[in-house]
């Protein structure tokens, strides 16, 4: 997965930077360097225009009217679902539930799939490197059911302790929920190995793919996971929209998560017949423009190819790590052998928040703080880190600007 730090020209992907209007601006007197895509990525004009055109011409409620606009809206919405299905290679469009984001997708599984199954004494396995959105829903579930939350430890590089995981995967484990890629450390977890271990024990696995989908080709059938959750706004799409992939037979057996319009076939006061998949899980008027925008983001990514995205990002990540390590006093946090293009770091004893301000003043956007992964910070004994995350629109100049600004920060704090 780790690319060699080669010098292969990547003209096609380099040209893509011009597709992103937000990247064409000056911030604090400097051309913007955006290194915070793991928090939220920028949108290409193709996505922005698709959303705007939908709002200008095609907006109506979906699955309801017989009029033309309602048809157009429904076609655009359902068309996006088909694109998403193909993008992650789900077997059927019934397996693609459109949600408000990864967080809702995970909560849906916790409440609708796990809650009816779990009994006191059962356990749910997560890991030490999870985002809060893959911790708190399980804590709530455990409070509700009396189940126990078990946390697989990580090593100093930020890699899962596979030996511990194997031991912890005992007969009490009823569910496993794991990040595909750590948002704070970049570690790519060996999810296929874990899923095959879980299969032997007949334990279902959910992958939090919020940081996986933006960086690599995802094939849910090849991964063999039971659920895969991800968000639009980390993969060049808009905020407020996400996806839950679930195996059809599992989704079929699950009760609805929320009640309302669109998730029903027939309602009377003596009872309600739920709609078929995936609509059973899409109560209420959905985020139509968001879903349409996500469809456009999928088109955009596929026009480049996720393998090309990954090659470009891996090459840049190697360059980023090399250049950072040349700075005296730098400490890289997260050095797993398999990593996505995310790098947390500390510089001398400068607080990450101070680094963030100095960098912002140079027009450089990074994330500072706990990255919604406080247990990871506690594991490394840090209040937070500075984190640079790369997307397909970043280049070596961005990294050179980052390094120059970090040297300036050292000067200010010297």
């Amino acid at each position, binding site marked *: 997965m780790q690319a060699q730090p080669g010098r292969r020209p990547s003209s096609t992907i380099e040209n893509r930077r011009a597709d992103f209007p937000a990247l064409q601006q000056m911030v604090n007197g400097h051309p913007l360097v955006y290194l915070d895509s793991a928090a939220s990525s920028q949108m290409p004009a193709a996505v922005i225009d698709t959303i705007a055109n939908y709002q200008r011409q095609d907006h109506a409620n979906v699955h309801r009217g017989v009029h033309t606009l309602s048809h157009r809206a429904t076609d655009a919405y359902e068309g996006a679902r088909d694109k998403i299905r193909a993008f992650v290679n789900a077997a059927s469009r019934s397996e693609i539930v459109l949600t408000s984001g990864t967080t809702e997708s995970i909560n849906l599984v916790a409440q609708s799939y796990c809650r009816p199954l779990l009994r006191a004494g059962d356990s749910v396995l997560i890991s030490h490197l999870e985002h809060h959105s893959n911790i708190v829903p399980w804590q709530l579930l455990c409070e509700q059911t009396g189940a126990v939350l078990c946390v697989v430890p990580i090593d100093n590089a930020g890699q899962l302790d596979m030996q511990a995981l194997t031991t912890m995967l005992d007969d009490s484990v009823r569910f496993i929920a794991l990040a595909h890629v750590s948002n704070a450390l970049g570690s790519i977890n060996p999810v296929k190995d874990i899923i095959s271990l879980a299969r032997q024990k007949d334990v279902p696995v959910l992958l939090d793919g919020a940081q996986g989908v933006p960086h690599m080709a995802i094939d849910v059938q090849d991964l063999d996971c039971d659920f895969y959750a991800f968000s639009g706004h980390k993969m060049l799409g808009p905020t407020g929209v996400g996806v839950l992939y679930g195996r059809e037979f599992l989704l079929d057996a699950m009760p609805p998560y929320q009640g309302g319009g669109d998730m029903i076939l027939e309602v009377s006061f003596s009872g309600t017949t739920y709609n078929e998949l995936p609509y059973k899980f899409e109560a209420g008027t959905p985020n139509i423009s968001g879903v349409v925008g996500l469809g456009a983001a999928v088109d955009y990514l596929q026009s480049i190819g996720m393998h090309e995205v990954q090659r470009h990002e891996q090459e840049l990540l190697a360059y980023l790590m090399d250049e950072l390590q040349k700075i005296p006093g730098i400490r890289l946090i997260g050095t797993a052998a398999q990593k996505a293009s995310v790098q947390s770091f500390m510089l001398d004893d*400068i607080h990450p928040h101070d680094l963030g301000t100095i960098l912002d003043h140079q027009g450089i956007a990074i994330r500072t703080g706990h990255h919604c992964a406080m247990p990871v910070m506690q594991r490394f004994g840090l209040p937070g880190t500075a984190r640079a995350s790369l997307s397909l629109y970043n280049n070596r100049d961005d990294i050179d600007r980052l390094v120059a600004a970090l040297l300036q920060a050292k000067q*200010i704090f010297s």
Partner: protein
Amino acid sequence: MTTTINRDNDELRDLYRELILDHARSPRHFGKLHAATHMARGINPLCGDRLQLFLQLDGDQRITEASFEGSGCAISVASASLLTDTIIGMQVPAALEVSSTLTEQLRTGDSGDAESAQLGKLKALFGVHEFPARVKCATLAWHAMNSAIRNSATPATTE
């Protein structure tokens, strides 16, 4: 380009003045105050700054001792350190007055009035106004002081 960088440096140096960096590196009155009569915690959830502020008041509502502990960015630590330096020996109403004048200045950037002339070395914090994302760091200790004086049970937060 050189001039741009110099100007940027000037603005940053205005934020990270020598006095601020000095207090951040070697905070004054750092540690628990065992004889404290008032205490409050301050939390800035955005960046993880957390501090605990201790005050010792005598019968005449005079602050005889103050200290803090915790961790945070240079701005929040320096501000807490400057706070303790400033308020020791003050009457409570005077300390609250300083707190509200400083907080107002940081929020509005208005440092022209006569009151701010009383702020002494706290003026080193005025540069923070140009960095709106950092105002909460600078005011954290002051919120904690206000809540310690009110003896509030819930921690002060910047949110």
